[in-house]
């Protein structure tokens, strides 16, 4: 299995949509074959269309707000005493997280295809919030599928979705989290694909959704590349990019433009959700060696039992609480381009405490996982090593959990 240079990773799948010959694909009911093929044709055409790219960039610039900040975390760097720790503050983006890029692109595609309704799944609620914002902006009716457990633990985002005029459809099946929300959203699409567009909230699902999402979030690394050159004159000799990984949309977008650099120069570190320290359950299929299976239309490493039943996950962070992982990350793992590890709930909370103590930055529980590993490893790195952590979400949505776990003064 080999990663090719000079070809975007999203375009390195074979004609059936498999990366490395075995990750991804289209394991979908027959009914969805046609709508998926239509979307593929549209996307393949538009991603080469200058007018469409200009339109995307205009919305990114004037509405999403680009570029998001790239800042040095001086106090944290001094405290840790190793590498220089920086952050790409993607939570600056309109709505407070990276999910806005994918949502905007899906709404632009839906408009082009003449669809009047757009549906989407959400875990932490950011994908749902952003889709509801974008749908409102582009005049589309919007329905968001969300697990009942996530609805109760991510209330600020639920309120935002409703305020934007979208309908929140609670999902009570299974573990009542993201995995069930994605399933229910796909079911709704099966029944309504003639009138409705679907947005999958991360780099998961049938191959075309993986590609659209990766293409959209790559905005993050396009900005970062320019910002690094601006700051250091060139891409640093020792650069390490830390990102949390749930479905894998923010991390893929954070790394994409650096893919062709050697990993000794630009290393990618993906941090999965290890779950509570005392629990056997986790949401870290890459770290803990889960087997390849099929989930939501794609072959990927996924937590499952020997009968192929998908296993329940557990994580303090709703956005990472997913048993599978993007086929793109499976591919990056097996080609050894990226390295994956996990942080526990407690480690993420501790990192949140440290970051908020030293900096004017409030990473949500998802990027707090990445900060945890970045802080731990930075101690051992030389001072000329540049560590960048993608702070891809804001902690406002987590205030209930943080208050409960760390007390009022942190919330």
């Amino acid at each position, binding site marked *: 299995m080999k990663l090719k240079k000079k070809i975007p990773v999203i375009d390195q799948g074979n004609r059936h949509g498999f990366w490395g010959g075995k990750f991804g694909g289209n394991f979908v009911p027959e009914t969805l074959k046609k709508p998926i093929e239509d979307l593929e044709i549209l996307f393949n055409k538009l991603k080469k269309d200058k007018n469409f790219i200009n339109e995307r960039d205009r919305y990114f610039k004037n509405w999403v707000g680009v570029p998001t900040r790239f800042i040095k975390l001086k106090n944290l760097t001094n405290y840790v005493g190793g590498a220089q720790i920086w952050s790409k503050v993607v939570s600056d983006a309109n709505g407070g997280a990276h999910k806005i890029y994918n949502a905007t692109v899906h709404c632009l595609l839906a408009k082009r295809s003449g669809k009047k309704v757009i549906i989407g799944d959400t875990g932490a609620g950011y994908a749902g919030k952003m889709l509801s914002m974008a749908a409102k902006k582009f005049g589309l009716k919007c329905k968001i599928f969300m697990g009942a457990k996530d609805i109760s633990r991510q209330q600020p985002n639920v309120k935002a979705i409703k305020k934007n005029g979208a309908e929140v459809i609670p999902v009570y099946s299974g573990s009542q989290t993201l995995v069930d929300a994605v399933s229910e959203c796909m*079911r709704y699409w099966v029944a309504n694909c003639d009138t409705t567009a679907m947005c999958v909230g991360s780099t998961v699902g049938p191959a075309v959704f993986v590609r659209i999402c990766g293409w959209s979030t790559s905005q993050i690394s396009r900005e970062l590349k320019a910002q690094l050159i601006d700051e250091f004159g060139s891409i640093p000799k020792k650069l390490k990019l830390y990102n949390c990984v749930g479905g894998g949309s923010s991390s893929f977008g954070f790394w994409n433009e650096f893919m062709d650099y050697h990993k000794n120069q630009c290393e990618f570190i993906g941090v999965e959700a290890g779950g509570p320290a005392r629990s056997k359950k986790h949401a870290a299929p890459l770290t803990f060696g889960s087997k390849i299976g099929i989930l939501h239309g794609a072959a990927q490493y996924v937590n*499952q039992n020997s009968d192929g039943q998908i296993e329940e996950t557990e994580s303090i962070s709703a956005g990472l609480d997913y048993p599978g992982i993007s086929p793109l990350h499976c591919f990056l793992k097996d080609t050894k381009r990226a390295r994956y590890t996990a942080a526990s709930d407690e480690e993420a909370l501790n990192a949140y405490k440290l970051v908020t103590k030293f900096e004017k930055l409030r990473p949500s529980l998802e990027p707090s996982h990445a900060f945890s590993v970045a802080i731990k490893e930075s101690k051992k790195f030389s001072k000329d090593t540049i560590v960048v952590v993608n702070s891809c979400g804001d902690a406002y949505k987590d205030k209930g959990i943080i208050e409960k776990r760390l007390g009022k003064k942190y919330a």
Partner: protein
Amino acid sequence: MPNPISVAFEIAKKESRPALLTYTVAGDSSKKQSLEILNSISKNVDILEIGMPHNTPVADGSQIQTSSYRAIKNGIKINDIFKIVKDFKSFNKTKPIILMGYYNMIFQYGENEFLKKCKISGVNGLIVVDLPWPENRKFANKCKKKSIYFIQLLSPTTTTKRLKKIIKDSHSMNYFISMLSTTGGKLKVSPKEIMNNYDKIKRIDPKKNVVIGFGITEKTIKSLKKADGLVVGSAICKEITNSLKKRQNVVTNVNNVVKKLKKKIL
């Protein structure tokens, strides 16, 4: 020896009626009871579809989901499903059985091992909901080598060009999904429209049997009786759920539903 599935269609044709196919979930509500249901309804059913319950079923509506979660909770494993089929077949040698499920279960079991067990236990056909054509070509060929029909799904969204290709590659039986819906949805298109689509499919290769499924209940079954076969699933799963709720005899109630269905198509 011809596949019992084809024999079942011939018998129904001789009686000038569509074949009746039922779908029940293996292990719903227990391993023992699901076998009892199969034994009891088999007199009135031409082909029995048995669902392999999966916990992330992306094409199933709430009735089949409920049955599947119930079966999984009661501990059903793939090997138990093979045992149910084998036990059933020891008393009903000629009654055709189709297993229906999601690909991950087959993938984890291993395609070859899975087919070997199908053959030993007496499975005659397979429907894999999320392994569409052309991705299913290799697996369908493996099935053919074991004389097990791989049943292709066709949908209202399947283009004519694609229909022709799929039907050309298909074995003797195909499954037409009546409408855009998950299983158990309310019939939202007219029977006339469904039969028009059905006729279009039949014209491509009249020799191949086509069954219609999704949204078929006691109320709607009669209007589609010109088809080669009709599948009822969610309505039966719903009856199991209701009987459990009312603490009534599940086997008797399901059998009564099947009898009523059969009467409507005679």
